[in-house]
């Protein structure tokens, strides 16, 4: 497994890349909140939001279709919303029959369903762009600046640092298991479910012990460099003029989107 398997950041010198991470995080969240506030069927607003998104894609120098290509990640969850097609009262669009039950899709239901999908689709793309133009350690700094408790940001920093190391161990354990998962011809292989669960649990237990002992060694390393319970960080992000302007601009865009959504 390559060490950048979990990397989502793409190095570029674009305008977006150089923005303060706080601004990028805030604008992303405001955009998602704005989507949530738009009523069903606010087509003009949805399109305006989409244009904003495409403009951000272009500004990032990652290609106009960067987020589009990755946007289908949340699609399977759409199934959970399918019931609104039938349960929201309105003018019937069409009816079909499934196993002796009649299902009627209404216009309001269809509107709600499509709107949910669009809101989700727009929001996830902005989130994708956020981590594509912001180095994750900088995003952690942004969280610190935005007053997320230090203990949480520190755990997240450790999680990020050891993400690859531990998942690499898991993959080695999985590969070792696979190498020993042989089958002789004629016999059904695989063992029972309980046995397989036990093997998986042993792997998890093994990983836990190694992780625990690793954390002991890390603790010693921290002690050796002067750690005594309080963690200090240097967090040198300064807001420049363009950061303020971009935030102001984003607020204006969101406001306009909301107004468009009420027509």
């Amino acid at each position: 497994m390559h060490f950048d398997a979990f990397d989502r950041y793409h190095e570029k010198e674009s305008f977006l890349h150089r923005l303060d991470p706080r601004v990028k995080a805030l604008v992303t969240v405001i955009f998602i909140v704005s989507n949530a506030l738009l009523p069903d069927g606010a087509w003009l607003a949805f399109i305006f939001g989409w244009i904003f998104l495409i403009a951000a894609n272009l500004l990032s120098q990652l290609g106009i279709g960067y987020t589009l290509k990755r946007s289908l990640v949340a699609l399977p969850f759409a199934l959970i919303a399918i019931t609104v097609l039938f349960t929201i009262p309105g003018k019937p669009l069409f009816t079909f029959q499934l196993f002796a039950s009649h299902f009627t899709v209404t216009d309001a239901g269809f509107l709600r369903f499509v709107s949910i999908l669009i809101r989700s689709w727009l929001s996830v793309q902005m989130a994708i762009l956020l981590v594509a133009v912001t180095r994750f350690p900088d995003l952690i700094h942004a969280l610190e600046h935005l007053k997320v408790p230090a203990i949480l940001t520190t755990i997240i920093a450790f999680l990020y640092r050891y993400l690859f190391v531990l998942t690499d161990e898991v993959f080695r354990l999985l590969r070792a298991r696979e190498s020993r998962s042989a089958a002789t011809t004629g016999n059904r292989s695989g063992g029972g479910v309980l046995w397989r669960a036990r093997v998986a649990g042993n792997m998890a237990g093994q990983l836990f012990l190694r992780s625990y002992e690793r954390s002991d060694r890390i603790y010693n390393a921290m002690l050796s460099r002067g750690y005594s319970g309080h963690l200090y960080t240097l967090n040198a992000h300064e807001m420049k003029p363009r950061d303020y302007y971009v935030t102001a601009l984003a607020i204006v865009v969101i406001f306009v989107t909301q107004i468009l959504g009420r027509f």
Partner: protein
Amino acid sequence: MPVTHVKNSFAPPEVGGDVLVVKDLHFSYPDGHSALHGVSMKLSVGDKVALVGPNGAGKSTLMLHLNGILGGHGEVEIAGQRLTRDNLPAIRAMVGLVFQNPDDQLFSPTVFEDVAFGPLHMGLPEADVRARVDAALEAVRMTSYRDRLSHHLSVGEKKRIAIATVLSMNPSLLILDEPSAGLDPRARRTLINLLRELPITMLVSTHDMKLVQELFPRTIVMDEGRVVADGLTTEILEDETFLTAHGLEKP
């Protein structure tokens, strides 16, 4: 990759007399296993000493005593200061302990944050911290790695950054646990050159006898929790019977 021998501008603090004094150190683990049986040694300024011995000899245990992570019976003095529970922060600024597995040593997301950790926790102002980080990375010839993500580095790169993380504290004594383990020949050669250039008192535990022969004029041999030899590397490495008796081989 061409090797350049540039004079290293890194300079540890001035220390008079012995950098390290260990007097009759005894230690048993909580489970009863006795690890050190009266270990004594002295290191003077500028000494570069190899610490060798079979696995289980107590080398790592000894090293953990030298910056107070483990505490046994006996005395440990760093640059004239007796190691007690009260002056641990000061001791830890003077002793730079580099562990065997660099993944344990590099625990921050970026190289900069890891190298800055030591000086930052010493309470230094931001400008000083930055200056120390630059100096330490320069000393290990990895200035361009400052903003890199730790998990992206190769083992050899991590080992050198790990050394930088303790150099930024300006220690008087550098202690390394198996620095060349797991390195490919090129990375090993880079490390050897680095250690040769660093003008700092060193105690290095290793199984790499060629490394011992090349870099360390003095060797301490440990076995079963005791020091069984302490002298010139050339002499110790000549005595093959002795080496074999303590699980070692001539390079």
